[in-house]
């Protein structure tokens, strides 16, 4: 990696710059001048001027260089090659690149291709060399300029602090850019999908079979994108998960916050939280290879026909995974109910369980509901368990013993493996992703709002 080497050189120069600023400030100080800041800050100041502009140019140059060289090579190709359709042209460019790096081309190598590869290699080398020269010159110029500014009255610490604050601000913007990136990438690809398939068909259609025909005259694989079976499948599996997780999680939380002694609670809580720390792929394996055959066996024993990829197996195992989400939030919320409420209830002669059911739980209800909403959103977005244990066929069914598929399963099946990026099939995954994102976002916003309101009430 030549780029990494260049990066290392720039960083080494920055270290040299630091030493330069430091020694100059020290010698000024030794000379008896009242230097404004500690010598180290002059060092940092010089190092920043050395590294930051150079690195910015380095990054921009590295990003721009590839496409620029590509465009130059393409423009030097014979005209009939330039007029190829985009996909063929991409293939050609790929071949040129492979040839230039000593690899194998997918088509017959002729003189034009070799010449283009030669040209590509040369341009790449020239491009990198000029980038390196510019970057190194900039680094040295920056260090030289900054070092000249090191004078006793120069407030280096203020400059350094401004720079660091700017870095902190930029860092905190990454989270915002992530959200914007998610929304834009999902929206952009989903819009391309909705250009081909109408929104109404997607949201209300009852038939999901995303295989589109490869040739126009092919029969039977027209591709239909009615996502209702996916939504119902997701709801069914999440519903089963909540049936398992809510009672177990809620009662565990009541036990830990109301009945258990502190020592017991301190061991139980981390133990339960292990369930949340186990990777979901492990749950998926457990669901597919242990729970599903078990359920099938039991079903056979009582004469029920249980599918080997039944919604019940995936949902039940997902429920196990979600228990700690329900229990830890409920535990927090129940513990936050003021002691006075409980004591008033005991004073009226209520037993502990009566107090819990009639006083504590109603008081904690909003918080518990918020916690359950968060758990539902987690169940809807859960991927690996359903990919490994739920079915692929989109059945419109409410029977937990049948195989159903979910939104996340379809996203994975559509996007794993080779794909072309302009078929409705792959684009539909982004539409599903958008639905998933919006639905979980709504759940989260509502849940966080409810939980926060609840906390404010008792604080």
């Amino acid at each position: 990696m030549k780029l990494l080497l260049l990066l290392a050189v720039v960083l080494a120069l920055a270290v040299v710059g630091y030493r330069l600023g430091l020694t100059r400030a020290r010698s000024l100080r030794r000379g008896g001048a009242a230097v404004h800041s500690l010598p180290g800050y002059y060092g940092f100041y010089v190092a920043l001027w050395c590294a930051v502009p150079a690195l910015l140019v380095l990054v921009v140059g590295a990003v721009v260089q590839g496409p620029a060289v590509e465009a130059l090579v393409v423009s030097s190709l014979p005209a009939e090659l330039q007029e190829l359709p985009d996909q063929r042209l991409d293939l050609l460019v790929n071949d040129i690149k492979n040839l230039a790096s000593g690899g194998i081309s997918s088509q017959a190598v002729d003189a034009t291709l070799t010449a283009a590869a030669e040209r590509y290699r040369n341009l790449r080398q020239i491009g990198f060399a000029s980038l390196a020269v510019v970057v190194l010159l900039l680094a040295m110029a920056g260090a030289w300029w900054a070092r000249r500014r090191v004078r006793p009255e120069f407030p280096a610490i203020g400059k350094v602090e401004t720079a660091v604050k700017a870095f902190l601000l930029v860092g905190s913007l990454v989270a915002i850019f992530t959200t914007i990136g998610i929304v834009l990438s999902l929206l952009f690809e989903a819009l391309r999908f909705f250009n081909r398939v109408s929104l109404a068909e997607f949201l209300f259609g009852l038939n999901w079979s995303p295989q589109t025909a490869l040739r126009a005259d092919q029969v039977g694989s027209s591709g239909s994108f009615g996502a209702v079976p996916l939504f119902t499948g997701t709801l069914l599996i999440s519903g089963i998960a909540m049936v398992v997780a809510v009672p177990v999680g809620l009662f565990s939380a009541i036990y830990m916050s109301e009945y258990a002694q502190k020592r017991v609670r301190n061991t139980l809580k981390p133990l339960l939280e292990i369930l949340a720390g186990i990777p979901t792929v492990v749950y998926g394996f457990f669901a597919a290879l242990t729970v599903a055959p078990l359920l099938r066996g039991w079903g056979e024993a009582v004469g029920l026909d249980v599918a080997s990829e039944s919604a019940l197996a995936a949902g039940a195992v997902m429920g196990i995974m979600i228990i700690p989400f329900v229990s830890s939030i409920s535990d927090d919320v129940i513990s936050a109910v003021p002691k006075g409420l409980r004591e008033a209830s005991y004073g009226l002669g209520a037993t502990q369980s009566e107090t819990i059911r009639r006083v504590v739980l109603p008081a904690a209800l909003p918080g518990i509901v918020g916690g359950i909403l968060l758990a539902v959103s987690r169940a809807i977005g859960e991927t690996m368990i359903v990919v490994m244990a739920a079915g692929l066929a989109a059945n419109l069914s409410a029977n937990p013993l049948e195989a159903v598929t979910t939104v996340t399963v379809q996203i994975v099946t559509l996007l794993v493996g080779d794909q072309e990026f302009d078929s409705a099939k792959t684009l539909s995954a982004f539409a599903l992703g958008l639905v998933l994102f919006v639905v979980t976002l709504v759940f989260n916003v509502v849940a966080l709002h409810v939980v926060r309101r609840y906390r404010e009430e008792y604080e």
Partner: protein
Amino acid sequence: MSSADNAAGGRHPNLEEAAVRERLAKRYARERRFRWYCRAAVAVALLFLVVLFGDILSKGWSAFLATEGRFEIFFDPQVVDPRGTLERDDLARADYAALWRQDLAERFPGVADDRASRRELFGLVSDGAGYRLRDMVMDDPSILGSTRTLWLPLDDEVDLLLKGHIDADDPEEGRLLSDRQLAWIDELRQAGDIKMGFNVPFFVNGDSREPELAGILGAAIGSFYTMVITLLLCFPLGVATAVYMEEFAPQNRWTDLIEVNINNLAAVPSIVFGLLGLAVFLNFFGLPRSAPLVGGLVLSLMTLPTIIIAARVAIKTVPPSIREAAYGLGATPLQVIQHHVLPLAMPGILTGTIIGMARALGETAPLLMIGMVAFIVDIPSGPMDAATALPVQVFLWADSPERAFVEKTSGAIIVLLGFLILMNGLAVWLRRRSEQS
């Protein structure tokens, strides 16, 4: 007792007294029942935990063992290096399987006559046996011409039989080992020529279609590169964001927006981050598919909110008096943070980081989206090479039809869980230590 005395001397008729007692008894019974529900819920949750771990351990412990057979290998120069050049290219290309085949054929002299039964006999030994012999010769060509007693890996079906996963009493059509093969295996066992050894290939190989050759090292190295990238990106960014929001950010709408945004980002399904990585890093920026670099980028975006939230809590718990004392001595804001706030908050920040990294290590779905699911035999040598990760390897093996991969999958899960327990243990230890001081 006193209530009974009261009732006897008071005005209440006995009837009402009895009704009260009955109601009380009912209420107490309900209280006991309720307690039992609660205990049962905890017990059920713990039972799930025990069953899950028990299931994985019982399926997976045998993955660390492999069946080996004893062979008398004559390193025949005629077979390995017929031209006598001792050149590496010639040595690498030789037919090493012929060496152990020779020994096996000598041991069962009647078998070697027809091709079908020869194939059956040689099917008992893994392809890995030949690779191991090749490695020995390549390391030390002077071995040629000598005879050594070696333990070489046997086929995965033999392995399964010895581990008790194949029932020899099943009808012959129902199993992949024939009756004759079973008889040979019995003969070898009685002669003491088959043993269980530590499964070294499982820890030093990359993926393979042959279960007895498949190992987790490639996936582990891929996970390692991914985690390094993730840590390098999300630790500085997470701490920077937390410091900015706690120490510098003005209280306004903009800050509120960042805060709400981070909380929501923490709850976005992980697969959505995978879609982001696919659309932005692969399709827009044209980074290579299947590379740990992209995996690390995606996972760091996913882990960032966790670290930010933990770091903010840690910074918040630093007492304001410490800041004020430092300001009083003339420190600048950045000096206060660098010299006082961050050192005090560091245990909390590190705990949050480790927990976030543990989650990232176990994450699979986003990696599927960016193509880290390919079948990759080579062990990756850098973050730009095509690679998988440990959880993805689990997913890939879980899908494999061979019975022997069930054991390998569970074995890989045990290794993965081992890493996670290590990381979480470290986090707990850090937290305890900082609470004590």
